[in-house]
């Protein structure tokens, strides 16, 4: 998986690269419009993470160039603007997804995964973790082959955990992932707690191990049972 990150803020770019490298992506950085264009002409990337505010040009124009030249890469726009702006101005045209700064890194990762899956429908669309399986087409989750009766939100949550296995996920990141824009005004912490509790109970009731552990009451982690 090759990813091109187009971001002029060096520190942020560094953090994203570090994180994605840990997740076994090949990650390159372009800090300017020109550099990004050059790289896109020379190399092929599976996914482009595109900040639209660049010092020497607008990322949207880069996106248009890409699409005109028939570059097939998936594009996720990174923007400091509101989601509403995107909806109102139709900026996201030609992009597969957009993510608003500041975003939790696991969220970025989850979005990349989702896009990659959409691009390659013939790939094995079953995620596994230990004895948990999640079929992305039928949206069925099983423990040791036994079907779990999960709500949509719980399935979503489980996928998020599997995608970010071994990482600590803060409650905020989970809430942002599950409810997106709706969390602006809510005490998401309690809601996340409820959902995680239900999910853990359903897994253990079905005979699975309790893979999800609480980290000091700050967040959660999906770990292989020790």
């Amino acid at each position, binding site marked *: 998986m090759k990813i091109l990150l187009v971001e002029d803020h060096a520190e942020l770019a560094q953090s994203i690269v570090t994180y994605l490298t840990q997740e076994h992506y090949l990650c390159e950085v372009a800090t300017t419009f020109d550099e990004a264009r050059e790289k896109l002409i020379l190399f092929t990337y599976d996914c482009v993470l595109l900040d639209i505010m660049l010092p020497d040009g607008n990322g949207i124009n880069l996106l248009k160039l890409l699409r005109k030249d028939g570059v097939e890469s998936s594009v996720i726009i990174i923007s400091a603007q509101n989601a*509403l702006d995107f909806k109102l101005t139709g900026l996201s045209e030609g992009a597969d997804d957009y993510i608003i700064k500041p975003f939790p890194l*696991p969220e970025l990762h989850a979005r990349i995964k989702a896009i990659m899956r959409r691009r390659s429908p013939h790939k094995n669309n079953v995620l596994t973790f230990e004895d948990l399986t999640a079929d992305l087409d039928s949206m069925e989750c099983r423990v040791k082959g036994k079907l779990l009766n999960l709500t949509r939100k719980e399935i979503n949550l489980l996928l998020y955990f599997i995608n970010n296995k071994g990482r600590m996920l803060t409650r905020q990141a989970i809430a942002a992932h599950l409810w997106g824009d709706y969390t602006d005004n809510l005490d998401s912490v309690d809601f996340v707690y409820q959902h995680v509790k239900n999910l853990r109970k359903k897994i253990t009731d079905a005979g699975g191990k309790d893979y999800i552990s609480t980290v000091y009451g700050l*967040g959660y982690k999906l770990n292989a049972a020790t």
Partner: protein
Amino acid sequence: MKLNHRYTLAYAVISLFVLSIGFAIVYAALSRSVTQTTIGKLRHLNSVVTAQLRSGRDYSRHPARTHVRIRVGAPTDTLRHPSLVEVRDEWDATLQSMVRTVRLTTYPVVAGKHYHVTSKAVVVEPSDEYLTGIVLVFAWTFVFLLALVVILSEVISWRILKPFNAILQGIQRFQLNQKTTMALQPSRTTEFNALNEFLLKMTSRAQSDYQGLKEFSENASHELQTPIASMKAKIELLMDSDLTEKQLLMLTAMHDELERLAKINHSLTLLAKLENFESHPAARTDLSLLVPATEAAFADLAEMKNLRTTLHITPGVVVALDESLAQLLLNNLFSNAIRHNLPGGEILVELTATELHLQNTGYAPTVPVEELFGRFKKGNAALDSIGIGLAIVRRISELYGHRIDYTYAEGWHRIRVVFA
């Protein structure tokens, strides 16, 4: 009432007043002069009669004697009255009506005899016919004067007030968020020029302030997001390294604060955007679909708080609202209704063709409800909200001319949006 109409009215009243006084003067002068003329004629008659007496001939058949009576009086009379004028209304047998009669008595001494020569004449009073004539003259004068005043005031005021009207139009067309200055024409009137100058100064100041503020808020919020994102990413990376519990707690606190900062920033940017948002008059949204959809999106959140939600939706309610703004408005309202609710509380949503009602149970707000539409106002300080949602809701409503109000009564918070 227009300015020049007020002037016209004032002039009309003044000229009516002046004309009335003029009329009184004319009337008095006329009646006086008629009497004076008659007296003059009588004096002449008396002197003719006196001359006749002096001549010693018999003039008793003379036509001059018809209206003259001659008596011989006491010798002392002359000293007191050189002549006597009496003006009285008397019954006139020949005219069969009361008439004003003037009598003049002179006391000539002819051949040592003291005579009383009294002549009389009927004075034509300038009443009735005369009066009507005079009144008509004045009335017509008044009418012409009035017409002239009206026409002239229109013309003159149009000329004089032209710069003023231009200023008014300029003010009406003036918009703070546009970069164009007010188009004002110079005039020969000092006051208007002063007003022009003042307005130009004021508006350009306001515009530059506004622009500065706008740019500041846009840049500030926009440029802040990236560093916040960077910090958050770094903290997240740190969290995955080996840390003590204390360090983790600190990191989490930092993370939470950053999250909050980002939210405030987003909300403020959004508000600033909405302030300058050009609403498309054509934008329409079907709330009958959107309200239940939003409710469904929040259903699991409401469920976790054990809230009972009741919807009464009239089908086919389409109102003037941009779709994404409508979504934002509903999100804010629903999340508020959940957030500020009591565990096991209720939410009532009612959508009619003219109104949207959203009610929820909850504690009484600690500040007056009208203030909750302000920025960073929280009805309940215990909750970790930013307190900007209602400001956004109100702004969105205003954009499309919908009215919004908030009441609290008997444990129910009630938000009402009345569609324009």
